[in-house]
């Protein structure tokens, strides 16, 4: 592997997103993550454009790059046509590839995310799916969602959905052959490899932390330490 900076610049999102930064702060000013986390996208851009390998490595191993919500509000405003949000995506991609993501608490969340989302895509053809969107994990979805899930055949039928049905329509069953196509897309485009990489490094990290994978899943999915939010420790 070449230098981290060069690796990063192979990513099209870094090519698009990183021109020259003048540290003006328009990105941070309206960043929803900077509003609550100890986070400053301007600094991310500045570190990357410094080409300081040590600093970039630190960044890739830190919580810092995982605070962004990818709303891309920064892209609208940058006077130099940068996309800090795109650079973040490239950094995360590299951190995932190299296994650096397990070095930080927010980075380790890549494990539950990968399991939930790629699982939904490959099993159902949807990113979000009622069978895996449990009320217990999502109490904020409210009593109405609890009720909806408990009576989903009826509630879906009531509004004219085609829940798990053949043919087109709302929440239809995606045909087997289409799911197979998704799987082969994952296989040839590096999607499957990415899942395996995340799994491998997460397994190693779980071992290091003395957890089995279920505990590791719960821990990374639910636990938030002090110090991420700006208000922590004040």
């Amino acid at each position, binding site marked *: 592997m070449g230098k981290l900076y060069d690796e990063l610049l192979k990513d099209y999102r870094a090519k698009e997103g990183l021109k020259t930064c003048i540290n003006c702060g328009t990105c941070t000013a309206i960043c929803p993550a900077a*509003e*609550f986390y100890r986070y400053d996208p301007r600094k991310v851009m500045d570190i990357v454009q410094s080409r300081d390998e040590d600093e970039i490595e630190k960044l890739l191993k830190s919580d810092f790059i995982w605070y962004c919500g990818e709303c891309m509000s920064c892209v609208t405003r940058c006077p130099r046509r940068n996309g800090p949000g795109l650079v973040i995506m490239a950094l995360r991609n590299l951190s995932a590839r190299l296994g650096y993501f397990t070095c930080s608490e927010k980075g380790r969340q890549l494990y539950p995310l990968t399991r939930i989302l790629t699982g939904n895509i490959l099993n159902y053809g949807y990113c979000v799916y009622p069978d895996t969107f449990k009320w217990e994990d999502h*109490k*904020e979805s409210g009593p109405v969602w609890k009720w909806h899930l408990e009576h989903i055949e009826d509630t879906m039928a009531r509004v004219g959905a085609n829940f798990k049905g053949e043919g087109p329509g709302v929440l239809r069953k995606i045909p087997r052959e289409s799911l197979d196509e998704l799987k082969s897309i994952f296989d040839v485009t590096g999607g499957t490899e990415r899942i395996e990489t995340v799994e491998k490094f997460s397994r190693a990290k779980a071992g290091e932390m003395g957890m089995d994978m279920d505990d590791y899943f719960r821990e990374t999915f639910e636990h938030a330490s002090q110090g991420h939010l*700006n*208000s922590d420790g004040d």
Partner: protein
Amino acid sequence: MDFGFKISPSSAINLDNVDTVKFEQLHDMEPDVYKCMACGSCTSTCPANRFSGMSMRKVILALQRGKEKDVVSMMRNCMLCGKCTMVCPRGINTRHLILSICRIYREDGK
């Protein structure tokens, strides 16, 4: 009901709510405090900066933003060596300024 997370206060500095009474008091004693242009000469020469994060530039900024707690904790590390005064391009007597800051912001006995 506990959902496992809660609303967090914004980290944005809201200038509408900054209490500048003490800063104005300081300004009366040290008119030059307004002259800082945040060049960082003081910080780069500060022997305490290396190990404690003391930064005169940041102190003056924090005063203007009403972040007194940050100021007090940074000031604890100052050794009053006066190097910052020697390098300030705007001729601010930072050593004198530091003593005045201590007087105003530490009156409550901290």
